């Protein structure tokens, strides 16, 4: 399949990160074109304290509307959605978000696997999933689910990651479609129309 055909299909980008991923996002966000055509869903491991200041911090890095998800919010293109602390984030077939306070997965809530798998189920080939820096195995099973549903899988180039373990774990356990450094991740998102 042609590179552009793959990109044209993508309507949603889900990005998962753990330790070392914030610096990546702070570098990527200011370079994103403001007329974003897709929805971006961010799932980050962070402290449990229900601290909503992270989405405010992201808002200072980009003109794209950024918000922390509340239950049943719709998934709309042109927005960046952040998974709230201490909930799993899922997506319904009617394109709304659901939250879930069930057991931690991979010692994590939100778990990247949970959101990747749920997004894969709903968006199939219209999904691109990006796995960033981290010191945890979370995200690999999710990327496999994305791949099996026809979506595009991307891992941060381990040499460009503060904590290479997480993307390295995915690369070692599956056939990741693209391995990109930080600038290439930004270029990829900007190329989606």
């Amino acid at each position: 399949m042609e590179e552009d055909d793959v990109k044209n299909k993508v309507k949603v980008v889900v990005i998962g990160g753990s330790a070392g991923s914030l610096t990546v996002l702070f570098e990527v966000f200011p370079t994103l074109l403001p007329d974003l055509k897709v929805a971006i869903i961010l799932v980050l491991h962070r402290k449990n304290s229900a601290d909503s200041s992270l989405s405010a911090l992201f808002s200072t890095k980009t003109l794209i509307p950024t918000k922390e998800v509340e239950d049943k919010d719709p998934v709309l293109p042109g927005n960046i959605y952040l998974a709230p602390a201490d909930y799993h984030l899922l997506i319904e077939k009617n394109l709304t978000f659901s939250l879930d306070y069930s057991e931690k997965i991979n010692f994590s809530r939100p778990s990247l696997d949970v959101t990747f798998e749920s997004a894969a189920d709903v968006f199939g080939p219209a999904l691109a999933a990006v796995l960033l820096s981290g010191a945890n195995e979370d995200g690999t099973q999710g990327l496999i689910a994305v791949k099996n549903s026809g979506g595009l899988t991307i891992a941060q180039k381990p040499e460009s990651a503060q904590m290479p373990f997480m993307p390295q774990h995915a690369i070692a356990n599956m056939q990741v479609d693209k391995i990109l450094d930080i600038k290439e991740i930004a270029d990829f998102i900007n190329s989606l129309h």
Partner: protein
Amino acid sequence: MTIEDEEIDLLLNDVFEMYGYDFTSYSRASLKRRIIRLCALDKFPSFAELRYRIRSEEDYLKRFVEEITVNVTEMFRDPSFYKVLRTDILPILGTKPFIRIWHAGCSTGEEVFSMAILLQEANLLKKSLLYATDLNPSVLEKVRKGIFPLTQMKQYSENYIASGGIKDFSTYYTANYGQAKLNQELSEKIIISTHNLVSDGSFNEFDLILCRNVLIYFDKDLQERALKLFDESLGALGFLALGSKETLKFSTIQSRFRQLDKEKIWKKMM
């Protein structure tokens, strides 16, 4: 294992028709995950086997209900919420001769006991009744016992202090064989009953209803049903408390309620 959405429909239909539990309006994404998880836990080789077991074994239905509903909770979860209850809500409720509180979907009861502690510290427990309800009889058995893992108590003690508690939290329980048994006096005003927000109606009038992190498992229609039920069950100027990411903003009852400044607490205005 992958399960098709149509298979989930079949299963939920079986459960409703044979046993009367209606999960058809639960958030499907979460429910599907729970069902796949249960298949893995109980080692069903295929979805058909799960369905057969549920259809043929009433005892297994009990486990099904326990496992697909989420029963993760903690004492003084979101301490800032409990701080507002302490400083802003209980002083208002305290002016009433009698206080009725409903914990809807209370699961194993950690939040009910947290409330009992707040009431006791405000000297209001004696004139209060706490109704603890859940659809799931086995979690209510845990509320009745008031016994929780001792390993959790450190976290709960930190939450308690962050909520403005000034006592030694360990005075509220007796530790024994890795378990913490909460003081009997905290249980004396707790009334335990099964109640299903999908199918059961209003059963009393309350001054405060807490339903935190329950509505996230419902679709919008079922959320609306539950919120209307809470509206009907609240007295004038009563309070409704939801989870930190739940909202009235999609509901028709919103116009009759006013949200407090910070936390997810609404006051019924008419």
